[in-house]
């Protein structure tokens, strides 16, 4: 797996005004890394993620996955939506089987992988429920293993915990870390939550509200599973808090 983001730009035209969201953004992601895109809202991090996913096209530059240019969505890039986007008309089982069926995985292999994923996400016995009957945490886990089921090269997550409250968020972050430790897929996650970024990532890319400029590409060298109380952890947190203030400030200065 080798993902290259090369000089990506994105420009929107809105009411005769040109609005530059991303300008010449470049970085590379290596196999097995958990990378977070952190930035204030409006910094273009979700736009960048959806360009990598192929849901929208960039105005300039290219995304290369194993040397191949990305032009449209594909099963090599799994996606976890902020609202999970589980098909409400399918059971948990059918949802997870869906990507495997699309890729013509043989039946036996499919069933074995399904069992495996259900165990990994502690969803045994829930496979015949409809998504509407699941709790928030179960929905999130189902969405993650559904995205993993088709064995994507990279997993893209758009604020997967954006819609839950603080208490629940910490619990789900731990679940997410545990899940990732069992299946070390390459991950790119969009978040605006500093704590979440440090807790989960090997690497945090901080984007500025100003044209998505990369302010810092920070490696998080903490042992896993992560412990929030450690001094090092707090050090990262303080550093990123300061950085995010700059990221936000850039915008205000420019507007004034």
């Amino acid at each position, binding site marked *: 797996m080798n993902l290259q983001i090369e000089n990506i730009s994105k420009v929107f035209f809105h009411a005769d005004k040109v609005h530059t969201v991303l300008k010449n953004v470049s970085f590379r992601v290596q196999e097995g890394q958990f990378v977070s895109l952190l930035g204030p809202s409006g910094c273009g991090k979700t736009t960048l993620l959806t360009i990598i*996913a*192929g*849901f929208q096209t960039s105005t300039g530059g290219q995304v290369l996955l194993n040397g191949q240019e990305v032009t*449209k969505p594909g099963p090599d890039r799994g*996606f976890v939506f902020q609202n999970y*986007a589980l*098909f409400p008309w399918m059971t948990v089982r059918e949802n997870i089987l869906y990507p495997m069926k699309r890729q013509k995985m043989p039946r036996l292999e499919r069933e074995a992988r399904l069992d495996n994923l259900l165990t990994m996400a502690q969803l045994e016995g829930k496979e015949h429920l*409809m998504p509407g009957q699941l*709790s928030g945490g179960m929905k999130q886990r189902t969405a993650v293993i559904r*995205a993993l089921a088709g064995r994507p090269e990279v997993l893209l997550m758009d604020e997967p915990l954006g819609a839950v409250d603080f208490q629940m968020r910490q619990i789900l972050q731990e679940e997410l870390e545990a899940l990732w430790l069992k299946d070390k897929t390459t991950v790119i996650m969009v978040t605006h939550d500093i704590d979440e970024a440090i807790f989960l990532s090997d690497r945090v890319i901080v984007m500025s509200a100003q044209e998505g400029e990369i302010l810092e590409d920070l490696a998080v060298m903490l042992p896993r599973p992560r412990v929030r109380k450690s001094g090092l952890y707090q050090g990262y947190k303080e550093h990123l808090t300061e950085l995010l203030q700059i990221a936000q400030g850039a915008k205000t200065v420019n507007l004034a």
Partner: protein
Amino acid sequence: MEAIKDKISVCTAGNLSVMDKPDNSGIEKQKFLHRLGVAIAFLGIWQLASIHYHSNLLLPPPVKTAQRLLMILQDLDVLKNLAITLSRVLTGFLYAIVIGVPLGFLMGYSQKAMQALDPLVGSIRQVPIMAWIPLTIVWFGLGDGPTIFLIAISGVFPLILNTIAGVRGISQDYYHAARSMGAGAWSIFAHVIVPGSLPDILTGARLALGSGWMSVICAEFIATSAGFGYSMVEAQTRMETDKLLALMVMGALVGYVLDRVLQELNKSLVAWRFSKQ
């Protein structure tokens, strides 16, 4: 000790149900009484009016109408005509589905198809349903043809419009999700568009069946010599107003049953909509 515990739990359970139930059934009872009151008032006015006019031709009293209703429910001729009408409704309804749902999918999914077809569909929709009758008699002659056509044309528009609304209501995320899991065009259609719009299609089907049932009776007044509507015209020409009123009540009952059947079908087909925690 265990026995006492059991008793206590039984007591609390008993208390709970005593506290819960009267509240709820009280409201139900009140609702029922209100409805009963309105029904009695309606029948009372009907009774008074029939005494006032004192004519079985103008307005037979409720009791006489009810007796007649019981009679026609066992009248083979009426039942045969009802069966003819229902089979027309079903045939016309099927035509409406076969034409309306695919058109709705096309117009809901493709902006180009929408732009091209919308003016035509919108214009034809404005032709009053009954205005089709003379033309359909010219086309099909008297009999099944005009009635089936009328049911189909009255049902096709609610189906088209609701299918369009259903397809357009599907979140973009579902399309993105399916494509990012390797879905092709067929899977997008079969696993996203069809199930995602099914609740609205079924709403359209309910409206279509309802309007089909209403318009078929009208068509049968004019364009045929059999069917439920024809039975009504027959009762009218024989000056059997009590039978006419009984047939009207029966018409309402059949319409109600048809609607309930589709409502239940709706619930079982899109159970996921009702499976909230």
